[in-house]
């Protein structure tokens, strides 16, 4: 199975049909095209890499070339129903500010990231004493775009401190399965973390 597939399916489960969706770091538009085809959403993506922007255009996915470190100032409050950030939060300069901005432009947020607390990565660091690498984190420390890696616990603490209310959490193992076992020790057993959350002090 395409490793991204399961993640796409989970995100798609959470997005209501016909809703307005913004995807931050949308890559070549794979996720948005998936949501457009299956959920009939109105979608826009933001992407900085010109080759990937071109990829979106070839698919007919609305895309704006933008640097997420500049924030989301092109968008008004509540412009969208869902704002998604897939495998990108660890690569932005100000994850906390962006999280806040996400919940300004949309009520619902979805974030996925590689969990650096995953046991295989911990073992690598412990036994080899080197920066861990994995299929989800393929780059070396010096050429990695990932400047703000976090664990499941880190992310949840940040949300709590910001008053962001997590509605649902899914964790995938290396085979991209979501088994009940993972929930026994999510920060240890989950390689990919997927969250759905809403603005604090507002009910769903």
């Amino acid at each position: 199975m395409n490793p991204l597939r399961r993640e796409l399916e989970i995100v798609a489960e959470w997005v209501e049909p016909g809703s307005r969706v913004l995807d931050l770091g949308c890559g070549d538009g794979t996720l948005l095209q998936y949501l457009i085809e299956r959920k009939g959403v109105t979608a826009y993506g933001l992407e900085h890499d010109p080759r990937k922007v071109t990829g979106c255009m070839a698919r007919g996915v609305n895309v704006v070339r933008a640097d997420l470190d500049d924030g989301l100032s092109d968008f008004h409050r509540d412009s969208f129903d869902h704002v998604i950030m897939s495998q990108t939060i660890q690569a932005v300069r100000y994850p906390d500010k962006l999280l806040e901005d996400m919940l300004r432009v949309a009520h619902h947020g979805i974030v996925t990231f590689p969990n650096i607390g995953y046991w295989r990565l911990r073992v690598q660091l412990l036994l080899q004493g080197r920066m861990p690498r994995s299929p989800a984190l393929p780059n070396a420390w010096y050429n990695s775009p990932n400047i703000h890696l976090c664990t499941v616990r880190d992310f949840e603490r940040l949300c709590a401190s910001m008053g962001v209310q997590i509605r649902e959490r899914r964790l995938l193992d290396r085979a991209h399965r979501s088994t009940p076992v993972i929930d026994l020790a999510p920060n240890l057993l989950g390689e990919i973390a997927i969250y759905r959350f809403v603005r604090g002090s507002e009910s769903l």
Partner: protein
Amino acid sequence: MVKSPPAESVGLVTQHKAAFEEPLPLVCGRELPRYELVYETYGELNRERTNAVLVCHALSGNHHAAGYHSEHDRKPGWWETCIGPGKPLDTNRFFIVCSNNLGGCHGSTGPASLNPETGKPYGDQFPVVTVRDWVRSQARLADRLGIRQWAAVAGGSLGGMQALQWAIDYPDRLRHAVAIAAAPRLSAQNIGFNEVARQAIMSDPEFHGGRYYDYGVSPRRGLAVARMLGHITYLSDDAMRAKFGRDLRGDISFDFEEVDFEVESYLRYQGQRFVQDFDANTYLLMTKALDYFDPAAEHDDDFSAALASVACSTLLLSFSSDWRFPPARSREILRALLENNKPVSHMEIEATQGHDAFLMPIQRYLEAFSAYMGNVAREVGA
């Protein structure tokens, strides 16, 4: 042109002319009793008539957008980089139409045309035409060609603004608008440059209030100065530094008439070449049309409200070193379309060439434009 045109060119092309006898009411309150539009087409219109793309030219452009008029032509049409087999506006898939705007000087009715009321050239009597007037005249051309809906209307600079005007005025007659290096309206600086250009023309002793045709002369010096000024605004500071620096032609002359610096030589050459086939009154009209372009004006300066009627998808492209219509201006268009939940894409492209980049073979630019148009072609079954 060399003996045989390059394979990626549309090759030899001929121009066509359409005459319209029905009067055209203009935004200024006057009307043109009759008019002609000169245009070229490249590629084939498909049976369903869904693959037509209208290309709009910029300030000094015309209907000759691609290919060559004869084997003696040294240069192809102005958008040869983007129009042809396998290019972004792929003539194997699309039927491309490009017309010379009203007020032009390359065959469409303009100030040098004969005024039917006087039998003499219009000169200063030619009405001030606007982008909206151009779009209306082109809609009649589309009717004439049997094109109910364009797959896309595309252009750079002023041509991009014309594409936006199409999207506003005839929402059901285009599926896509492509506005490259454009702006929602001109800034004070933009208008200032245009005014200096106009003053250069009008203060030439051979201008004769715009009636210079009657005297058998033309304000060539003024027009050349206008073009020199314009040319500076089309290039970036970096591009000029890279191309000329402070290079000298020879020794410093201590003489105003002599050309000392390479950049002076280049600008004088550009000015002289331009006046050979461009009419000064047309330059006045085109710059005015640019100055007056302001869809937000009728909506209390709310550009977003001006775009509420838009029904097409929009592609915006802008270039990092363009200081005439910089990427921030394209982002204004982007924001207004987003506020209306309209489908839109925007890509800022790194380029050193300044405003002129939209005419240049810049790989990322051509790739993005091709990708977008490839999807348009699939959508219309081209």
